[in-house]
């Protein structure tokens, strides 16, 4: 039978994440941030109770969830940037004004761009980063999802992280001198 096409499952995960977020907002905990791990787990538990179960297994689900999270964060970061430039001045929500939602030190847009470049010559490393950072998976879980050894994950993760660190810290103006 094989796994359903990830592209068709994506919207489902996407909406589930949004629904969970809406639940958090309704419970009124302004400014509270959620770790990707918690969100993805919650979404999995919910969707896993569906019949028929839309996912072959947890790994299958997490891979899609991590990608969704990445897209969501990037989309929001872009929207915020546009709003700051005055692209959409009529709709700045209160929380945007009060809460800095980006964790200090990580520029999601720069990271996303660097990750895309990394994926061009090392898709596996890019995927490891996606799973670990956006999906909140541990080394062991990542190894399981990717069907490689935890030691390999660790090594690849170390390099990808170092490479991304350099890539992200290089200012866009110095792009010509960017690592590789």
């Amino acid at each position: 039978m094989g796994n359903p096409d990830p592209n068709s499952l994506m919207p489902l995960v996407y909406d589930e994440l949004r629904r969970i977020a809406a639940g958090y907002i309704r419970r009124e905990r302004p400014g509270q941030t959620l770790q990707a791990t918690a969100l993805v787990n919650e979404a999995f538990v919910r969707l896993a109770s569906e019949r028929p179960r839309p996912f072959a297994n947890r790994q299958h689900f997490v891979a899609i969830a991590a990608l969704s999270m990445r897209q969501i964060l990037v989309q929001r970061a872009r929207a915020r940037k546009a709003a700051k430039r005055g692209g959409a001045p009529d709709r700045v929500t209160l929380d945007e004004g009060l809460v800095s939602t980006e964790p200090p030190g990580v520029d999601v847009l720069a990271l996303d761009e660097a990750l895309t470049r990394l994926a061009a010559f090392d898709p596996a490393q890019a995927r490891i980063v996606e799973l670990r950072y956006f999906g909140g998976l541990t080394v062991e879980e990542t190894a399981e999802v990717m069907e490689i050894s935890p030691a390999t994950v660790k090594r690849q993760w170390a390099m990808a992280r170092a490479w991304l660190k350099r890539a992200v810290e290089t200012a866009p103006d110095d792009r010509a001198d960017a690592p590789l």
Partner: protein
Amino acid sequence: MTPERWERLKILFSGALDQPAERRHDWLTRHADGDELLAQEAGALLVAHDTAGGFLEEPAVVDPADLAAVDELASGTRIGSYEIEREIGRGGMGVVYLARDLRLGRRVALKAVPRLHDSNVALRERLRREARAAANISHTAVATVYALEEIDGRLFIASEYVEGHPLRSEIESGPLERTRAVAIAADIVRALCAAHEAGVIHRDLKPENVLITGAGTVKVVDFGIAHVDSINTRLTAEGEVVGTPAYMAPEQLIGSAVDARVDIYAVGVILAEMLTGQHPLAPGRRSMAIPASEIARKCIQTDPNDRYRSAGDLLAALERELANVDAVAETVTPAVRRSAARWWWEFHQAAVSIVYAVMVWPTWLARNVIGGQAGNAVFVTVLAAAIVAVTLRLHLWFTSRSYSAELGWARARAAGWTLVSDAIFAMGLVVAGVLVGDARPALAVIEIAVAVAAATAFAVIEPATTRAAFGQTDSL
């Protein structure tokens, strides 16, 4: 960077990483096979690795508000033939935009249906059927569904854009006036009648889905569309039932088969809420407070069989209630209360006239007892005063009943004369009573008693009935 070079870089990086820090440089130079650039690159990566600190070590964090806001359509976005103007509503299950239909040049409310699992063909088909049915409802109190559009794999429902405010905002500022509450409920039920006839059950009626237009008319929105949400409810876990459980009939909450009577339940809740300003089953409340409404109570029965059988039955009950409310209002509105007081004022005038006229007879008897000039004088005085007072009072009584509009003027003219004639009449009776004295004690008592009664009437009672009948400012 070629994949080959990257593979070599990987080997260099990993190999050097296994070395103690101070020996890494040497190790790299030895293993780079003379590729200085690659060795440098690996060295830079190692430095980055050592200085990376907590970079990416903690998983990404996200603000729930960001998550929820994702995927929204910015103003000016084109979706098929619609141009988004702005967001006008957001539920847990989707966003409603005010958009312009560029083909017809009209404004529409465009609801972005939550994404559905693509493989769920049956659900899609069902949605389409529901929207088609909803589009068949034609009633002024129903926001018309124009179209179900599938654009870039997403479903959108375009419906009539209603300018107005939700009923919710009125309830929030306290209970509604009874007539208005029942009238609004009746309008909602009229919409339901049309919908149920078209085979559409609303399923998510609540004060948020009832809009009051600028002209004060009622529009029920989200017919058939709301159902999308309840279908999706099953996608969400417990504790986050989408839609509003507070307005859902018990059978709907537990997921049994539902029929049109779930809408009747919702109307009951809304009606009770309009009347009391509070949800009838608010926390800490076992039963409905006050007899808010017998109709509301019948609507929110747990067993659907105990509710009204149809929207038509409920409408009939509401219309009866409306007629009753009007009838009751008749006796309680200030204008009406005044007309009741007017009746008493008229009664007072008539009663006084009769008493005055009747008193002429005992005074005639008194004249005979007293005799002489004094007897005549007393009798004539009382008779004259009685004639003036009774004539004036009958004049006022007649004017009040037949030429009400002239009454104010008539009262103004008569006021001084009645006062004088009343006073003279009472004094005449007292004098007659005193002069009769011991000769006819019973007669004397009658004369004096009626004198006191008359004095009380014109000094105390009449001003009171007058004030009640004509109001403070108008009392003369």
